[in-house]
């Protein structure tokens, strides 16, 4: 499992190495901070921090589809006619919206370890198994994200009038096609602002995974701060990098919003 994820990370980093905005041939650290602590390569911490930036971004991007899909199905479950389905979905959201993200992460990280270890021992594998921090973080953050996402999608579902479904059935579309062709496009438009907020929260929550050892922005800058004793500078850089991520995603979101509203007449 761990080898699989490192392989993915390596493949992505090899591709991004060419257009790396931080440490590539035309990277910021290379151009402006060549002789400081932020230099790339063995002389400075630039490349380590650039790697952390990549890990943070890829963790958030990898978590997003997991959380979105789970959240969608939980939202469907919440408005189902089946009482047991509604109840179990509500238990899920109550749990993961009520627990601190850090605690969820610890419970998943250590709990998964215990479960997998017991399973491995049961099938006769001797030796210790360590859960990948990236994987545990993805699951924990995905669960938290999906709990919030289901609430956003649920309120978006409520904003779509019943007549839209009826129109779909009247056209002879079955349930899945109605959802896909008629409801989902409108749902995205209504839910986008809420999902944008959730994405920002997810981006910030990724910093927590540094606590269980994932080499993300915060972890890498912490190591640099501890070694060089220049704590303020490095943590300030971490803040700036997170701000850059937030700024980039707000750009992306506004363009998606424009795309989703392309069919609305200008009023």
């Amino acid at each position, binding site marked *: 499992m761990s080898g699989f994820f490192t392989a993915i990370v390596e493949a992505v980093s090899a591709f991004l190495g060419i257009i790396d905005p931080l440490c590539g041939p035309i990277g910021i650290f290379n151009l402006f901070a060549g002789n400081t602590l932020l230099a790339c390569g063995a002389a400075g911490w630039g490349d380590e921090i650039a790697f952390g930036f990549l890990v943070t971004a890829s963790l958030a991007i990898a978590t997003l589809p997991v959380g979105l899909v789970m959240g969608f199905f939980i939202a469907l*479950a919440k408005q*189902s*006619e*089946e*009482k*047991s*389905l*509604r*109840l*179990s*979905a509500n*238990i899920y959201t*109550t*749990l993961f*919206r*009520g*627990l*601190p*993200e*850090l*605690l969820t992460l*610890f*419970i998943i990280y*250590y*709990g998964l370890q*215990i479960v997998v270890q017991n399973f491995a021992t049961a099938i006769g594998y001797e030796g210790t198994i360590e859960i990948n921090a990236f994987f545990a973080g993805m699951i924990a953050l995905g669960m938290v994200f999906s709990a919030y996402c289901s609430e956003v999608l649920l309120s978006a579902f409520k904003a779509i009038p019943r007549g839209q479904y009826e129109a779909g059935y009247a056209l002879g579309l079955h349930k899945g096609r109605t959802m896909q062709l008629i409801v989902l496009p409108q749902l995205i438009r209504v839910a986008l602002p809420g999902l944008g907020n959730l994405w*920002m929260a997810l981006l*910030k*929550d*990724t*910093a*927590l995974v*540094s*606590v269980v050892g994932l080499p993300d922005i*915060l972890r890498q800058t*912490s190591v640099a*701060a501890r070694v060089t*004793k*220049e*704590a*303020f500078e490095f*943590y*300030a850089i*971490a*803040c700036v990098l*997170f*701000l850059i991520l*937030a*700024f980039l995603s707000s750009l992306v979101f506004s363009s998606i919003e424009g795309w989703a509203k392309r069919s609305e007449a200008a009023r």
Partner: protein
Amino acid sequence: MSFVTTLIAPQAPPPAPPKPVTAGRLFGNAFLGIWLALAVGIFMMIVGGWDPEKFAKYGPNYLSGLGVTMLLVVLSVVLGALLSLPLAFARMSKNPVLSWIAYAYVYFFRGTPLLTQLFLIYYGLGSFSAELKAWGLWWFFRDAWNCALLTFTLNTAAYQAEILRGAIESVPRGQHEGADALGLPKKIAFFKVILPQALIVALRPYGNEIILMIKGSAIVAIVTVLDLMGQTRLAFSRTFDYQAYLWAALMYLLIVELLRNIWAWLEARLTRHLKR
């Protein structure tokens, strides 16, 4: 001529049609079963691993940790509310410099993780200890608890300023004009007309913010403050007993649910004049 001489004997109703086994029902029962199994499993784990010695040793620690968490949240939310008032006004002011500064403050504190801010203040300012000692501020920044309180106050002030600004701007223009027409001075118009209406709009976001603070406060454990999460980590590192986390989860869940219900009741109570 024939007529009915006997009534038809009462018949049993036809049997109810069998409930169709739909996918929803199947999944619902399956998930409910999973939750039930989890609940039973956790219960068995707690019963099976019950150790009065550990309970006596770590139980009081958990309660004191809970106290630290609550104190931190209450203090920072109250102080943040005080700080958010001038911030919200600066954000709404017509002076571009003032509003830009407030915007930058809010953007910084809402755009970066709380954990990074905490590290920046606790470890980052720690590297300026000589200067801080010279200014006589070192006693404050030396203590992780103080740094956590400062970070949380600054952070929640940014969020609360946005909540307040949104709420004040949501009050219709006519309310301002009405107050002007009555000849009310600006200050009285704000406190008696605008603010009460704004606070009703702000009630729900404020509740969410407090819940977010309670959940966010868990990270102070990382900088050695012994709040609920800190005590939990301490207990786990001493006993390697997974239950340590389950107890903490239970306590956090209880506080958050309690607060959520209190807030729902409060909201229903305060907005009862708006019900139609």
